[in-house]
């Protein structure tokens, strides 16, 4: 692995953009080409992020763009954290792209692939960039494509969901922009490492306001409790693969932004408690809301919010192990939630209804898809030997260790609620007798391949958590100790 050659990491963003721009042209050549473009490009990204990993673990790779040193130009700072998230994003993106091959789409197909590719590129950019404003730009790329994709199925609910998403999203981006304005006004720089270095000299009232604005801004994307009104709607109305990408990628990028802001840029200690409390509230509210959800995708969306709550708890604990656990949870969730969405998408497609009540007996009719759904549900509940077990274990362990026993108990209560509603769905899949006429087509091979990859990885991560944690620990260290991050960037200067 150490010897894998790698290309300039800027290509991880440049190539997808190039490809996205070229798709209309390629479509002229053949209607079928566009659907393979994301596959190819994300495959490249996947390879690239794997090849980079050994190097970024040593020390953050600083990639200069336009030949300008950090504070002047924009640079990509690929630390372990960014690299691992990029790996997750590319991986999930790749898998979903595999799934996309046979996904039944409405016209105009090529636009779907363009938006899809750009959404993932935006997320990749977010986790790689070392520049605050650039982060904002990539956030906008992600969210604008997400708005468009939410409404991609041109039905009435899709537009409604997209509008809500857009409404909240643009308010949040305003907040971020205001925060950036404050930071720029007080430090005169936009490079994150540079800001982190200079922020100490700034009046804390300014930084506090900037922090609040940033928390609200990124909080919308990372689905913190009162800011997540858009999420259930968007998840449930978007096309299935997009829902999967929301859960697997977009949220992760949002959380990355949040983590970067609270850990690297600012250094307020109280904010961690705040994040901790928001995490538990988010978790509980989401699980409670999911409990009696009638629509399966809405339920998954709430569950996704709940999982993010768990990640926030881990981030709020602010110990290295906890953060590693949180990252592990993000990794797991990035594998499992797409798996659930993809399988649920097929189930919905076959039953012809989004209601959980109409999924009765799908276990008999669609054993493979149902199996994957059940597998995902089990993994998400944290049952050994699947991956969710370890991340939950670590997070709870650290919570108790930090003395928040009640909090741990509440988080576990959330887990129990989660188990209840997932089991109800799984129960319906397997226990109820099927309704008579449902379409009985076989699942497409591409979907099976996609889901198998995710499930296989989930199992692998569950059996060998140390392999994953080996990479996550440096990432957690990067967050906990920002000097390394700053040094890497300053050294270039």
């Amino acid at each position, binding site marked *: 692995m150490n010897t894998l050659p790698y290309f300039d990491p800027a290509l991880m963003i440049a190539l997808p953009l190039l490809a996205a721009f070229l798709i209309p042209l390629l479509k002229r050549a053949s209607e079928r080409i566009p659907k393979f473009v994301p596959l190819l490009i994300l495959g490249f990204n996947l390879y690239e992020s794997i090849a980079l990993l050994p190097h970024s673990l040593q020390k953050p790779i600083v990639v200069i763009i336009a030949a300008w040193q950090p504070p002047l130009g924009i640079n990509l700072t690929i630390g372990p954290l960014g690299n691992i998230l990029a790996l997750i994003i590319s991986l999930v993106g790749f898998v979903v792209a595999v799934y996309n091959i046979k996904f039944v789409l409405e016209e105009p197909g090529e*636009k779907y692939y363009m938006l899809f590719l750009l959404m993932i590129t935006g997320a990749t950019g977010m986790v790689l960039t070392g520049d605050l404003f650039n982060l904002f730009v990539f956030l906008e790329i992600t969210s604008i494509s997400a708005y468009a994709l939410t409404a991609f199925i041109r039905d009435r609910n899709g537009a409604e969901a997209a509008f809500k998403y857009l409404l909240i999203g643009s308010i949040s981006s305003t907040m971020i922009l205001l925060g950036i304005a404050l930071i720029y006004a007080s430090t005169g720089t936009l490079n994150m490492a540079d800001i982190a270095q200079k922020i100490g000299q700034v009046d804390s009232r300014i930084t506090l306001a900037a922090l609040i604005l940033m928390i609200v801004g990124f909080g919308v994307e990372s689905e913190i409790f009162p800011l997540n009104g858009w999420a259930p709607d968007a998840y449930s109305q978007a096309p299935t693969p997009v829902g999967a990408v929301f859960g697997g990628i977009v949220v992760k990028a949002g959380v990355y932004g949040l983590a970067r802001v609270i850990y690297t840029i600012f250094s307020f200690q109280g904010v961690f408690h705040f994040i901790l409390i928001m995490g538990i509230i988010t978790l509980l509210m989401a699980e409670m809301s999911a409990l009696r959800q009638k629509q399966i995708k809405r339920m998954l969306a709430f569950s996704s919010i709940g999982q993010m709550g768990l990640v926030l708890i881990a981030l709020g604990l602010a110990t290295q192990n906890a953060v590693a656990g949180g990252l592990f949870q993000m990794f797991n969730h990035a594998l499992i939630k797409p798996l659930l969405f993809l399988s649920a998408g097929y189930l919905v497609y076959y039953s012809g209804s989004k209601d959980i009540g109409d999924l009765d007996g799908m276990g008999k009719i669609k054993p493979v898809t149902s199996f994957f759904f059940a597998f995902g549900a089990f993994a998400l509940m944290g049952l050994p030997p699947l991956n969710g077990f370890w991340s939950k274990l670590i997070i709870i362990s650290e919570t108790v260790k930090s003395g928040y026993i009640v909090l741990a108990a509440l988080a576990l209560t959330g887990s129990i609620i989660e188990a209840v509603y997932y089991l109800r769905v799984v129960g319906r899949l397997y226990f109820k007798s099927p309704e008579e006429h449902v379409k009985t087509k076989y699942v497409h091979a591409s979907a099976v391949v996609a889901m198998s990859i995710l499930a296989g990885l989930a199992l692998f991560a569950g059996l060998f958590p140390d392999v994953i944690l080996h990479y996550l620990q440096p990432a957690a260290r990067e967050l906990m100790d920002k000097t390394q991050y700053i040094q890497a960037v300053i050294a270039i200067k």
Partner: protein
Amino acid sequence: MRKVFAMLFLAIIGFYLFNTFALIPFGKNKMNADVAASYLNSGVQKTGAVNIVTSIVVNYRGFDTLGEVTVLFLAATGMGALLFRKKPMQRSRQNASVIVKTGARILFPLIIILGVYVFVHGHLTPGGGFQGGAIIASGFLLMFMSYRTYKVNHKVLSLFETFAGTSFVLLGLFGLIWGTSFLANILPFGEANTLFSAGIIPLIYIAVGIKVGSELTAVLDTMLKTVK
């Protein structure tokens, strides 16, 4: 009720925001010597463009601009996707008056030329790709408004779009191949304050201009088509 709530909370937010921003001195020089001042001090030598804003937009922070172009592209694509119809709707608007029509026909080429001028001289004068593109699009808007049956060739538009977007990225990639990094300025700077200066900056701005122009035009066209 909702209004009261909204006002109350907005007042709180406004109060705190204002208090915070009041800490930032208005109209004072708060430039960071390493960043903003450095742009002003050495920007002309190092990029060859006299318009520092342009040099920042296109070169120093060229990556942002690439993202920005992408955002616009996304908007256009998203609109195209959301307003997609197999059969375009027939427009049922009235023709504008003769004066408008004639005026528009005269103005249209001028506007296009102005737009081209603005983005070609982006590194010299205020303005640039976005502005130029917007001007071009406004020219097309004028034509759309004036003529009921005015049509743009979508294929050509998207060809322009693709070509421009691709060439932006390719220019960046050339920087990677022949220079040191992505988007590096590989061409000679030439003499500052002349048209052929500043290396790839004008080229990128031209690409941006074309792209913005065609994309905004496409956006306008798409939106107009949906209105009955």
